[in-house]
């Protein structure tokens, strides 16, 4: 599904990604771990199409199609979803209105009619229940005054609504207490299928107890320095990153 070939990316002339190779197949869960500043979040942003980064070499392909020239929204329409480490607050736009706009813009791009209001409402309720989100929460301004946990839960709610092929979860576990982490992980697991894939980006092995990866990759200084199965995460937890440098 996702194929990253020799990806190099710069920001303000500084090279952050120095040749990433990664392949993710449908139905798989991959985790990327690594110390601060190793390029984890950059990789997530580059896949999603953030314009601040300049791709100098290599490519990102989704289902055989090179994403390089596509704007972030086009990538979203093609099935890429990025859950933000720090979701943005947008006062004045409710969670419901925001997700409605996102869904209908995506449908428009895919040549589909807008989702009828009744079906939209039904879908919103179904997904809100899945993530144990209070209905009242849906009429609040997007992320404004949300706790860390609420923000992350809202990200996964949007993911549930948009049903992406590839979900990239950037530090979704940070700022979550253990109960919230369970709810979020449970949501992600329920949304998992043979047709989609998940890329988890995390510092800690904790999240991986709840969302179990098929593969774990260690990113260091802009490169994947080691790949393995889920047991690699435990090894990292125990030994830290120094032994890989």
């Amino acid at each position, binding site marked *: 599904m996702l194929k990253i070939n020799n990806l190099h990316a710069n920001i303000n002339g500084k090279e952050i990604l120095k040749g990433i190779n990664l392949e993710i197949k449908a139905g798989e869960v991959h985790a990327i771990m690594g110390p601060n500043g190793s390029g984890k979040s950059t990789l997530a942003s580059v896949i*999603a*199409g*953030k*314009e*601040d980064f300049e791709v100098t070499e290599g490519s990102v392909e989704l289902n055989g199609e090179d994403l390089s020239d596509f*704007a*972030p*929204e086009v*990538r*979203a*329409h093609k099935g*890429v*979803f*990025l859950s*933000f480490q720090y*979701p*943005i607050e*947008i*006062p*004045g*736009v409710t969670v419901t*209105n*925001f*997700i*409605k*706009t*996102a*869904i*209908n*813009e*995506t449908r428009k*791009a895919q040549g589909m009619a*807008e989702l009828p209001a009744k079906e939209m409402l039904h879908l919103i309720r179904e997904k809100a229940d899945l993530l144990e989100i209070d209905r009242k929460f849906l009429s609040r*301004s997007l992320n404004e005054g949300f706790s860390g946990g609420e923000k992350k839960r809202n990200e996964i709610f*949007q993911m549930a609504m*948009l049903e992406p092929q590839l979900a990239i979860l950037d530090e979704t576990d940070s700022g979550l207490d253990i109960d919230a982490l369970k709810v979020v992980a449970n949501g992600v697991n329920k949304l998992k299928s043979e047709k989609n894939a998940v890329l988890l980006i995390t510092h800690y092995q904790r999240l991986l107890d709840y969302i179990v990866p098929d593969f774990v990759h260690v990113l260091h200084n802009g490169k994947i320095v080691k790949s393995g199965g889920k047991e690699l995460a435990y090894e990292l937890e125990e030994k830290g990153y120094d032994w890989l440098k």
Partner: protein
Amino acid sequence: MELKEKLVSSFLAFENKGNIDLDSTVHAIRLNAINNFEKDGFPTKRDEEWKYTSLNSLLKYDFSLFPNAEKSVGFKNIKDYLINDIDSYTLIFVDGEFNSFLSETTHEDCDVCVMSSALTRPKYKMIIDNYLNTIANKKNSLAELNTAFVKEGAFINIPKNTIVAKPIQIINFSTGNEKEVLLQPRNLVVVGENSHVQIIERHQNISKNTTLTNSVTEIFVHKRAIVDYYKIQNDTNESSLIDSTFISQKQQSIASVNTFSFGGKITRNNLEFYHEGEHITSNLNGISVLNEKQHVDNHTLVDHKSPNCESHELYKGIYADKSVGVFNGKVIVRQAAQKTNAFQQNNSILIDDGATINSKPQLEIFADDVKCSHGCTIGQLDESALFYMQSRGIPKKEAKALLLYAFANDVVEKIKIPQLKALISKLIAKKLNVQLGFEL
């Protein structure tokens, strides 16, 4: 002939034409005003209050001062500019003349009628004598010019203990009947004790010709009365507006003026609040959404003279292309005005490199036990917020609009008439050139 000379020299003819008694207060007021105008003339950029707004481009026109009103204007020509889905009183003026056929006035529980009849009927003499031109700023030469030619406009007199059931819409149309026209509507609003009224005011050019409107409104808000005033400024690029609004408030009254500026060539608002009692609340809200070479200048003044009063001011602006915004908000807290709460905020977003905002908060505080704050921000759209929305499939254009909507939203939220709120949301969306699937 220059416009100033033309105005001064036409004054006598104007006075003789009307049926105003030469002994009347009105005559004296006019005469004094024309003398002041002759002395001061039009403001120039040398005048501190007009530093960022020049009228030069307007004064070169050979305006028709007393236009012949287009008689054939019908409901179909104007209906787009009325809020039709609310029951309201309407005062429709066409090229400066009242159009009774298109209007809906009342004399039942209150007077919603016109200045021309108030100026001449004995019944209203007392009100005219007591109120007319008593709070209009004499240092404002444009207000003086308006006063010199006071003749027509809205006359709204609400007796005490009256809740006016329907909003009042005041709309001044210009039809292009003359090539270039100067209109000078004069409104007087007197709201008695414990009464409540909602007023929507609009100026609209329905032609491609040039219009300059020099409007003055005086509003008197008596004890515990509530006034909600909305100004829709969304005129054509050939139209300019100078709007001076003076408000005098008595104790425990609440007056709110909401100004929505989306169009016009040059718009200058002078909005002044004067407190005459304790526990008064004044609210000043504004949104400007401008593009092309549009220019909107908001000059506001809140004069806190008595203790225990509040003022809340929030002006937001979105400036694209080469548009220019000016905000000058002055708050005076006089020595007697202890325990004043005065808040002022001006937030602007510049969308394009060529756009300008000149923002000047001015606080003059002479009392020592007060709470006053002011803030001013000038920024650009938050790129990380745009990326966030794009990553959810919302295209950049819509994402920008959504952010700008959100930016303006807290002012839109203050609109108390739902149909008006919907209209303003729609006008903002139109101005931002997007279709959003929901109303805020």
